[in-house]
């Protein structure tokens, strides 16, 4: 699975020492050239990521005074974290973000796998279906969020109309916490399930055909084949899709910003919305930085944990 194996260049002990020296000089020149080639990219990346991350951590651990002309960092403190961790809004945002991530990713993986299984059976038009699946993926989230906002509109919304025909009265879908959360999840599931389907489909297409023949010879039926042959072979692909999706879902910002503005009553306030609001609306840079830093830390820790679990799974399937 990993592509990180960097082969150590074999140092051949040549009979001619002069030849060896020449090679060493050449290698050093090439290494310097390598740094020259990568320097521009690495400098730009560091300036835009490493500097802000360090600055965010420092800011989250400092007393930050907001002045008319800007702000001032004044001494070490753990207050920001204390303020954040004891704030019920943050606690709710953490629970909401984790829950939202779990529910949407599980539904997207199941639905995406189902769609991939359907498309894999198609004998014609699979290319067109793939192209169609890319439309929601490439759609600007602000646009899809506005589209769903209109679909949920209390007066002109299609969803409202369908619900009222089904006998649910005339609900204000985005007006109550529970239905707003479900509505937001549906909008997310619509936009990103196709993305999962594409990844799973690509994995399905690459599965070797002979294992199916073997399963068929063994008398396994379709259901059994799916669970005992397809799913284990697909595991690395699905794990990749899960990783992509969890990372995205955990940082969710655009969708609630446009669809619900984090409401009603903070019901859809994700960690990113909370951090943004603390910094740009309330100008509380210290607590804002603490929210941002904790979120980033959770993402990186989750990622490392995932890779650990995932790696052991890969070696398991290789045995």
């Amino acid at each position: 699975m990993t592509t990180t194996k960097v082969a150590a260049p074999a140092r051949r002990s040549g009979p001619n020492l002069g030849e060896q020296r020449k090679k060493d000089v050449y290698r050093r020149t090439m290494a310097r050239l390598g740094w020259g080639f990568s320097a521009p990219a690495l400098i730009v990346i560091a300036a835009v990521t490493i500097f802000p991350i360090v600055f965010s951590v420092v800011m989250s651990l400092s007393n930050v005074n907001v002045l008319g002309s800007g702000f001032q960092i004044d001494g070490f403190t753990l207050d920001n974290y204390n303020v954040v961790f004891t704030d019920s809004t943050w606690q709710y945002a953490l629970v909401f973000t984790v829950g939202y991530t779990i529910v949407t990713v599980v539904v997207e993986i199941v639905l995406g796998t189902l769609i991939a299984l359907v498309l894999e059976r198609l004998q014609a038009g699979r290319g067109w279906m793939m192209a169609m699946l890319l439309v929601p993926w490439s759609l600007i989230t602000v646009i899809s969020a506005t589209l769903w906002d209109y679909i949920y509109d209390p007066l002109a919304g299609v969803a409202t109309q369908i619900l009222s025909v089904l006998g649910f009265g005339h609900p204000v879908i985005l007006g109550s916490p529970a239905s707003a959360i479900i509505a937001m999840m549906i909008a997310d599931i619509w936009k990103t399930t196709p993305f999962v389907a594409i990844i799973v489909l690509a994995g399905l297409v690459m599965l070797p055909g002979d294992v199916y023949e073997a399963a068929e010879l063994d008398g396994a039926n379709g259901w059994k084949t799916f669970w005992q042959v397809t799913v284990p072979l697909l595991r690395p692909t699905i794990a990749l899709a899960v990783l992509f999706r969890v990372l995205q879902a955990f940082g969710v910002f655009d969708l609630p910003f446009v669809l619900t503005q984090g409401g009603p009553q903070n019901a859809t306030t994700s960690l990113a919305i909370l951090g943004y609001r603390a910094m740009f609306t309330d100008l509380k840079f210290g607590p804002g930085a603490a929210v941002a830093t904790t979120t980033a830390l959770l993402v990186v820790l989750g990622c490392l944990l995932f890779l650990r679990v995932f790696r052991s799974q890969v070696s398991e399937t290789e045995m």
Partner: protein
Amino acid sequence: MRNRRTVGGRIGLAISSTLVILFVMAPIYWMLATSLKTTAGVAASPPQWFPIPVSVVNYVTAFTQYNFGQYILNSVIVAVVSTALVLALGTFAGYALARLPMRGRFTIMVLLLIISVFPAIALIAPLYLLMRNLGWLNSYQALIVPYTALNLPFAIWILRNYFIGVPREMEETARIDGAGPFRTVWQVVLPMTLPGLFTAGIFAFTACWTEFLMALSFNSADAFRTIPVGIALFGNAHITPYGTIFAASAVAVVPIAILVLIFRKSVVSGLTSGAVKG
């Protein structure tokens, strides 16, 4: 292979494919249909299923009453320049990390991976302050520089994987023929890694085209809004002009849809590169 030819199987397949198409395309249809309705049609309750009478008033409004032409131009400038920079810088870095004997290549690749998973919210406040101190708020470079940096790690990973696949003999031959390192990359290696460039390019472009948080935070002045910001700030607190927004959206979808359709295979290979490679 599995039995797929029974009549029941075929009908089931047809029904499930239709459901898939409906699931994906119904909201898209609704967006396009709404953009073609009259103002009364957009607000109609119960909703009009078809845009009758068809009207282009929303398209006219988006470009005349709102500054949508400017937003498109801004998005194109930012996305094209960022993508070009990502490909230029990423090609050299990816080549060096794939081929040249630098120490710590492994560490750099892991660091790039960690950086690429960082949520944007963790970077936004310090970057905002940095941009303000540089006097870069409401400028193209305020987005081009971060977009380039944030899309480079993925591009470097993709391109490095392609470079590793180029046979070393080709480079040796070029060197024996007297080509310098720059010419070797440009004339020998790059043509063999075009699919990788397409993949890295389409991903960088899509990410720049759709990015919202930074564009909103750094470039909220009307003259520098990109499409997502322009659309999010359309109208006012009381009225959301859905028809106009969807007309603008339909126009905004066109460039990216054409690119994605042309480079369909590159996109799919990029999405699955982690699973395919290694």
